[in-house]
């Protein structure tokens, strides 16, 4: 045996070993299937060449070689199309199928015409032999084009695209280029082989492993008390914390598989029992996010994915984060859902996400909104503070599913006080309790994507209309536990009002007001209310000037009026 067959056998063995390694490590099924097919077919074609060289007899090694040689290149093209998708998924599938069918057709024609291994990349005399050389080169050109397009358009996948480009170039040099050179140099043993396949396999494998999806099982999320009836789709929540994103995710998930993709922060209370995967830090973060979401939704077409912390992906991957989420949108099946929380993003980063075609929600902080309702109906939000203390959580950790237990807690507290009050106030108590329950239930039932038209009445007006004494003035209901101060400082209440009415924009507006007043929140008193209202108006007017969408401007004006009404309410409460 000469050195040629030995070298080819070594290449085949290395290819098979690396293919096995990929088979157990890579979690992207479609791309893995294509690359394994390509490596297997390359190995078969190389092995057929060895068999033709060393085995005696008339076995149809040429036919085996033609089929595996042509289809291996088609599989490389299909792998690149599947792995680096650009454009519509249906067109990609059609492209892969078309190339494969063309390869099958050529293989059948080649077997029928009696093409031989020695014809590989040789000067051709017939159209058929031209196509035997042109088809593999065209397939590699498709892979090169896909890699170059991904390097240009998918900023989060440049590293993978670069590795794919190198791998394809290696196949091009090891195949057509060396076939010509070696034939001219008289090394005919290597005709029809590609000894660079193991090197290309390593490079393709590196690309696959660089953005390997995180492991998941596809479990359904536990049933949560979220009463929203939301259609499947893409939801983007512009909020301070991912409270509403978690609730939207649970509402969409139902009994279908659901996966929460989180950053490296501590686990959130709202995701207890949910299958969760943690993104890796570093530049791989955005591509791993995209790969995991796409693979999950490909395996569970009615599933739901939550991108819990887009700020983590932005911090790791910069602008690649948006490209990653866009690529998930392109690959999403019809009945699947994706929920993205924009918590902790800067205004310019949020603005960049505005281009995402999705259902948007910009809800106020949940605890601030609940506190505002309690304040409007009872004159104080102390019952909320007492409830969260009993549950051993912070108000900020309150979730949508906690609203019914909170209502129950408040109603029990009110019930306890009814027995202590005099008979004359009895009808009033039930009215207050009913209105409060109505407000909280309506709030609980309203999804964050639907603007609430609830008017937050001032406590004085509500209770005055009922002919009742203010609930907070009755000892017992509002009496704080001994270690707690009486009521929240006015600054805190005003901050809550800003967040409740203006959503995430409330925080910077409140900060600007404090900066202009040159005061700490704790030092804000009733005498500052007029200045706070004026400065808030100015800040909101500036904010409105930057909004060039008519509907958004109207919404802002509406929110501003509600905020002013509540600020006026604070002034009239005789604090």
């Amino acid at each position: 045996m000469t050195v040629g067959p030995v070298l080819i056998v070594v290449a085949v063995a290395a290819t098979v070993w690396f293919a096995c390694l990929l088979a157990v490590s890579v979690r992207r099924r479609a791309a893995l299937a294509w690359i394994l097919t390509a490596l297997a077919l390359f190995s078969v074609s190389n092995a057929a060449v060895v068999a033709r060289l060393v085995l005696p007899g008339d076995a149809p090694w040429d036919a085996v070689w033609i089929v595996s040689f042509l289809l291996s290149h088609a599989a490389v093209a299909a792998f690149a199309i599947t792995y680096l998708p650009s454009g519509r998924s249906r067109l990609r599938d059609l492209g892969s199928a078309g190339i494969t069918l063309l390869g099958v057709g050529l293989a059948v024609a080649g077997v029928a015409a009696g093409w031989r291994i020695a014809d590989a990349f040789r000067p051709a005399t017939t159209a058929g032999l031209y196509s035997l050389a042109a088809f593999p080169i065209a397939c590699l050109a498709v892979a090169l084009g896909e890699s170059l397009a991904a390097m240009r358009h998918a900023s989060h996948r440049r590293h993978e695209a670069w590795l794919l480009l190198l791998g394809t170039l290696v196949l091009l040099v090891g195949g057509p280029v060396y076939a010509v050179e070696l034939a001219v140099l008289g090394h005919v043993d290597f005709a029809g082989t590609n000894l660079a396949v193991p090197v290309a396999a390593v490079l393709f494998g590196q690309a696959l492993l660089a953005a390997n999806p995180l492991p998941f099982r596809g479990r359904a999320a536990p049933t949560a008390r979220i009463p929203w009836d939301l259609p499947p789709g893409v939801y983007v929540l512009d909020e301070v914390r991912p409270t509403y994103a978690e609730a939207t995710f649970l509402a969409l998930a139902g009994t279908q598989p659901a996966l929460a993709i989180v950053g490296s922060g501590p686990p959130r209370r709202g995701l207890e029992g949910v299958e969760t995967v943690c993104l890796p830090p570093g530049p791989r973060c955005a591509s791993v996010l995209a790969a995991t979401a796409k693979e999950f939704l490909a395996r569970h077409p009615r599933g739901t994915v939550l991108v819990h912390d887009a700020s983590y992906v932005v911090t790791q991957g910069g602008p690649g984060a948006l490209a990653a989420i866009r690529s998930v949108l392109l690959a999403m099946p019809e009945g699947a859902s994706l929920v993205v929380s924009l918590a902790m993003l800067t205004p310019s980063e949020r603005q960049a996400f505005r281009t995402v075609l999705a259902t948007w929600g910009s809800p106020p902080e949940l605890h601030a909104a609940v506190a505002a309702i309690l304040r409007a109906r009872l004159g104080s939000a102390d019952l909320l503070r007492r409830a969260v203390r009993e549950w051993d959580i912070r108000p900020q950790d309150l979730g949508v599913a906690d609203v019914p237990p909170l209502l129950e807690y408040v109603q029990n507290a009110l019930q306890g006080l009814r027995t202590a009050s005099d008979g004359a106030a009895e009808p009033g108590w039930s009215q207050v309790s009913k209105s409060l329950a109505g407000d909280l239930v309506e709030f609980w039932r309203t999804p964050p994507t639907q603007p609430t038209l609830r008017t937050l009445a001032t406590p004085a007006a509500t209770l005055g209309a009922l002919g009742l004494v203010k609930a907070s003035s009755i000892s017992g209901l509002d009496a704080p536990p001994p270690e707690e101060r009486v009521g929240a400082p006015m600054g805190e209440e005003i901050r809550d009002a800003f967040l409740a009415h203006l959503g995430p924009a409330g925080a910077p507006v409140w900060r600007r007001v404090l900066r202009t007043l040159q005061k700490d929140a704790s030092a804000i008193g009733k005498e500052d209310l007029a200045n706070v209202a004026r400065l808030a108006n100015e800040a909101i007017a500036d904010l409105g000037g930057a909004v060039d969408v008519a509907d958004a401007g109207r919404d802002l004006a509406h929110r501003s009026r509600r905020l002013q009404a509540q600020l006026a309410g604070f002034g009239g409460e005789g604090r």
Partner: protein
Amino acid sequence: MAKLRAREKTVRYALLFTVSLALVAGFWFHAEFYKLGLVPLLLGGGSVTFLTLLLLQRLATGKPLVGRPRRSLSLPREAVGRGLDGTQTLAILPMRTPVPAAGSVANVVLDGGGRPVARMRIEDVRRCLAEDLRENDVVAAGFESVDDFRRVWAPGGASDPLEVLVLVTFRLEAVS
């Protein structure tokens, strides 16, 4: 252990020898095929050999191909001291601070500029609301408690609980 090191060395030298053989064979074949003269062969072959050796050296040492770190992380003097001692592994920074990407190696300089004092590997970068900071975060950042952090962070007590902070986890690589 010594056996393992010897085996590792043997594998490395065998690989290096194989690469050298492949390079020489490649030059010989291509010089024959393209009828290259001495000067083109020296220039082309020299460049390929140089790049291959550079790549192998970087692969062996695990250093990034881009060379020395270009980004720097500016920290207060006390934080740098604790970082060098290994008692601080996390820095809490305001959003406006430029932070090197996670996974990179950064030069650490003292606040206010100056020469790099150390090189740190940035292991993770994440954001956190000021009021969501946990006890273990502030302890890793060299504070005694969350209250201690708040006292240092906003001496007048006028901090914004919804301020977004950047938490950088790092590991000492080398002292400059």
